[in-house]
């Protein structure tokens, strides 16, 4: 695999606040990475570093083998779709699309036309008159039609309804299959996009919590349920992310090594299921915050 972008020991401080703390990661060529994390975790800062919008306090950022900061050769290969993108006041939809077509060498005008139709965006409509969702759709059209070797979407779905979001995911997947490129999707809607991801990068309070293959990740945590004593016993020598109990019945999310553990859980009379990505992310964010052994949580009745 070839690295498209590398962050090495990157720290970003703003007036005493550490937004990113010694972050190291690599974005491989032709992958879709989900950039996940809570609000204020450092997702946007990370994207701003990749696009040369910011310079790190310390550490090294490299995109296409060079520092992205004020390097036009690098920047023309990056498309950054920002949350709540602002356009010049007088801009119409068609102006935004034309401007983008000059900016990106791989621009596909036919694809842009099809997407404008799909998202029901009239070229002549003034951008200032668009609803929030339609404004987001303009960013999505540009992000997809740019075919930029590195395309970054920072929560691109604000105001978009479920139908339009599904349209975005379907078009992204179809175009990505035909024209592979490196995509980063920063999102809170983990459940909706988890199947699209090849990699998962989870940040929490400026640190990388997870940086793994999405499909492999599903096998790394089991949700076990059954008699409380058996659940406790199963978690004894394993990393327990959370436990909930209701009377004699308990349920726990437990990190495991592989199929051996699933067999062990079943043999102990427990039901065992892989943990969905969304649930795993929530539990990991909670577990890193608790910064101590998980306590048995009684469900209030």
């Amino acid at each position, binding site marked *: 695999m070839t690295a498209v972008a590398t962050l090495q020991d990157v720290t970003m401080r703003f007036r005493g606040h550490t937004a990113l703390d010694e972050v190291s990661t690599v974005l491989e060529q032709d*992958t879709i990475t989900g950039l996940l994390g809570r609000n204020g975790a450092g997702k946007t800062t990370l994207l701003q570093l990749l696009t040369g919008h910011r310079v790190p306090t310390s550490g090294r950022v490299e995109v296409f083998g060079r520092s992205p900061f004020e390097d036009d050769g690098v920047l023309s290969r990056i498309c950054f779709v920002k949350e709540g993108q602002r356009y010049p006041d007088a801009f119409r939809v068609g102006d935004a699309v034309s401007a983008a077509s000059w900016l990106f060498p791989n621009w596909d005008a036919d694809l842009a036309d099809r997407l404008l139709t799909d998202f029901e965006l009239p070229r002549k409509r003034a951008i200032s008159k668009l609803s929030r969702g339609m404004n987001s759709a303009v960013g999505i059209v540009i992000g997809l039609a740019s075919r930029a070797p590195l395309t970054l979407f920072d929560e691109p779905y604000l105001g978009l309804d479920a139908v339009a979001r599904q349209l975005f995911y*379907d078009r992204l*997947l179809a175009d990505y299959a035909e024209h*592979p490129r490196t995509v980063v999707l920063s999102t809170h809607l983990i459940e909706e996009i988890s*199947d*699209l991801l090849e990699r998962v990068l989870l940040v929490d309070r400026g640190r990388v919590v997870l940086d793994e293959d*999405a499909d492999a990740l*599903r096998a790394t945590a089991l949700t076990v349920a059954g008699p409380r004593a058996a659940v406790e016993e199963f978690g004894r020598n394993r990393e327990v992310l959370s436990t909930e109990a209701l009377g004699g019945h308990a349920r726990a999310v437990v990190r495991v090594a592989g199929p051996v553990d699933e067999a062990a859980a079943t043999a102990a*009379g427990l039901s065992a299921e892989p*943990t969905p990505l969304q649930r795993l992310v929530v539990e990991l964010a909670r577990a890193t915050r608790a910064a101590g052994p998980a306590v048995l949580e009684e469900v209030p009745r």
Partner: protein
Amino acid sequence: MNEAAGPIFRQVADLIETAIVDGSLPEESQAPSTNELAAFHRINPATAAKGLNQLVADGVLYKRRGVGMFVATGAREQLLRRRRSEFADQYVRPLMTEAHKLGISSAELATMIDRWADAR
């Protein structure tokens, strides 16, 4: 795909295996492509490719350069053999566990199975 059913590449492989076993994907016919699988199941193409490659490694599918993947001759028999050997573990074990919980004896269970077979 089903998030609680384990790795997606394995689910993709299982679905293709099932189609081969039930005959809807006959031997020597062309298997769906990576991009078709990705679009249909709304999954990452790399994950779909991993599922297909697993089946190639197992000898269930084979590649024809520039054309695509095809179901190997003998694949159905091979899959049937494997699924039969896994049957006890996957179906009989949970059946026995539940029967034991309810105090149903093996003899009673056998009677139930006979009656079910007769009713079909």
